């Protein structure tokens, strides 16, 4: 993949993946830094196929944020005081999806967003995250159960 092609894909995919990262990380700076790291990583070692680019970039970006987090899998409310973005959090809290995602761990949010927003199936999520398909299914089942409980609590 040439640098020009990569720059074109960058412009094309940036909005979607940045928003997906916002939904997971709930922080503009972290999302932007993570996505830049992912694009730089892709420039050095691009994925084999363009079709996998969105999922690949998303997972690489999420992983790059975990490298600098002490407690990456804690529920959101435990860490929002130190790393939250007030404006984005307020926007997400106004959304139904934002409220549903708020009760999940970052890993659960990443897989839920990968499935429902980026449209990846379990096999693709497993390949990008480097886990077994069963692990993805279990994580998504737990996440859906929590979101269902949240919907029940609200109603």
């Amino acid at each position, binding site marked *: 993949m040439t640098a020009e092609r990569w720059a074109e894909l960058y412009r094309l995919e940036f909005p979607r993946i940045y928003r997906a990262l916002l939904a997971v990380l709930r922080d503009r700076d972290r999302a932007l830094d993570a996505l830049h790291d992912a694009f730089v990583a892709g420039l050095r070692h691009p994925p084999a196929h363009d079709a996998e680019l969105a999922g690949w970039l998303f997972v690489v970006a999420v992983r790059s944020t975990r490298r600098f987090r002490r407690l990456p899998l804690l529920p959101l409310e435990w860490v929002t005081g130190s790393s939250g973005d007030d404006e984005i959090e307020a926007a*997400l809290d106004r959304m139904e*999806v934002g409220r549903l995602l708020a009760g999940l761990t970052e890993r659960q949010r990443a897989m839920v967003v990968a499935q429902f927003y980026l*449209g990846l199936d379990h096999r693709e999520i497993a390949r990008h995250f480097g886990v077994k398909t069963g692990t993805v299914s279990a994580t998504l089942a737990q996440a859906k159960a929590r979101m269902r409980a949240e919907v029940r609590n609200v109603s």
Partner: protein
Amino acid sequence: MFPELSIERVFRQEIDSLPLPPEHLWIPDRPAARRSIPLTALVISATVVLVLGAVLTTREAGDAAATRRRVTTAPLVNLPRPTCLRGGCNIYRSDAFGYGIVLPADWRVAPLFTAAHRRPASWNASSSRARRLSNGRMRSDST
């Protein structure tokens, strides 16, 4: 059952409404590319100056080396100059063999080493002494 199809639509609709960062933070703009042109020109001109400097330095070093070689390979300058004292000169030329030899000023022509052959009678007194010596040697050799 959790309504996955509808939730996918809700996810896309709501997450797509999240704001993007300002464009200058993620879209490489053209002025940035234009600003790089003077930098490129500066780098190229600096490279040209460095190459020219290196070439000139190399050439000067070569000239200096060549000059030094000429100086070191010209020992004839230190040869004694032809002098003529007391009617005799210390330069010897041979047109037949094409050479001219300059001997130091304090060199003198040594008398010929005489062998066993006879010398003409017109030789001077010093030659007569040499002849006597050589005759004596001949005699001693013959005995």
